[in-house]
């Protein structure tokens, strides 16, 4: 089953894995992005993710359809969590089921890259010193 979802709840990876699988499948790749305790050397205590919900889910679906068309994989799940996430939390899951490992790994890799490039989601770093700042905001000082 394909799954394209923006959620403010913890990502349930077991449910994602159990939702996929079919007789023609010989490979399943699960990639998880997690919240790191630093960014470019500066200590962080977590992230806040802002989202344009309707457009983000439409973009996830578009990416999934591209992956199936371009790589010939069978099923795709793309799930992104939003809101405040502590260090270690899973922020994004990409799960791809395919016939063989080569195209399945390639599709999962392309999937996470495209999610980061084209889905309208923005992260704000909560620095360990108590301040916070949006990523890519050149004018930010708070």
């Amino acid at each position: 089953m394909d799954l394209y979802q923006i959620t403010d709840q913890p990502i349930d990876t077991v449910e994602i894995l159990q939702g996929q699988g079919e007789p023609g499948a010989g490979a399943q790749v699960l990639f998880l992005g997690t919240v790191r305790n630093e960014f470019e050397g500066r200590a962080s205590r977590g992230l806040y993710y802002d989202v344009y919900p309707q457009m983000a889910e439409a973009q996830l679906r578009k990416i999934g359809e591209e992956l199936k068309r371009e790589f010939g994989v069978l099923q795709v799940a793309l799930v992104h969590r939003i809101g405040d996430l502590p260090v270690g939390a899973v922020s994004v899951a990409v799960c791809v089921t395919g016939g063989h490992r080569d195209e399945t790994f390639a599709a999962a890799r392309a999937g996470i890259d495209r999610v980061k490039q084209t889905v309208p989601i923005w992260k704000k770093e909560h620095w360990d010193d108590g301040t916070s700042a949006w990523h890519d905001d050149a004018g930010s000082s708070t």
Partner: protein
Amino acid sequence: MATMRITVLFFSFAADRMNARERAYELEAPLTVGGFFDQSLAGPLGEPLAAWLFSVNQEWVSPDYLLQEGDEMAVVPPVSGG
């Protein structure tokens, strides 16, 4: 000239700079996204057109898109999910 009403959504630091996540505008048609940006948004957003992406009705558009009555436009900083 015809008047049109559009809704504009702001996200991430664009929302901080506008002090709003959503605003309604009444504009004189014809007007492109880029023209509207120069006229109403460049000042408060504080960065040039090239610093932003735009969507209309949840599809990415270029600045030469001609705005229509009822459009939902979004001003989008560079995305940074993952």
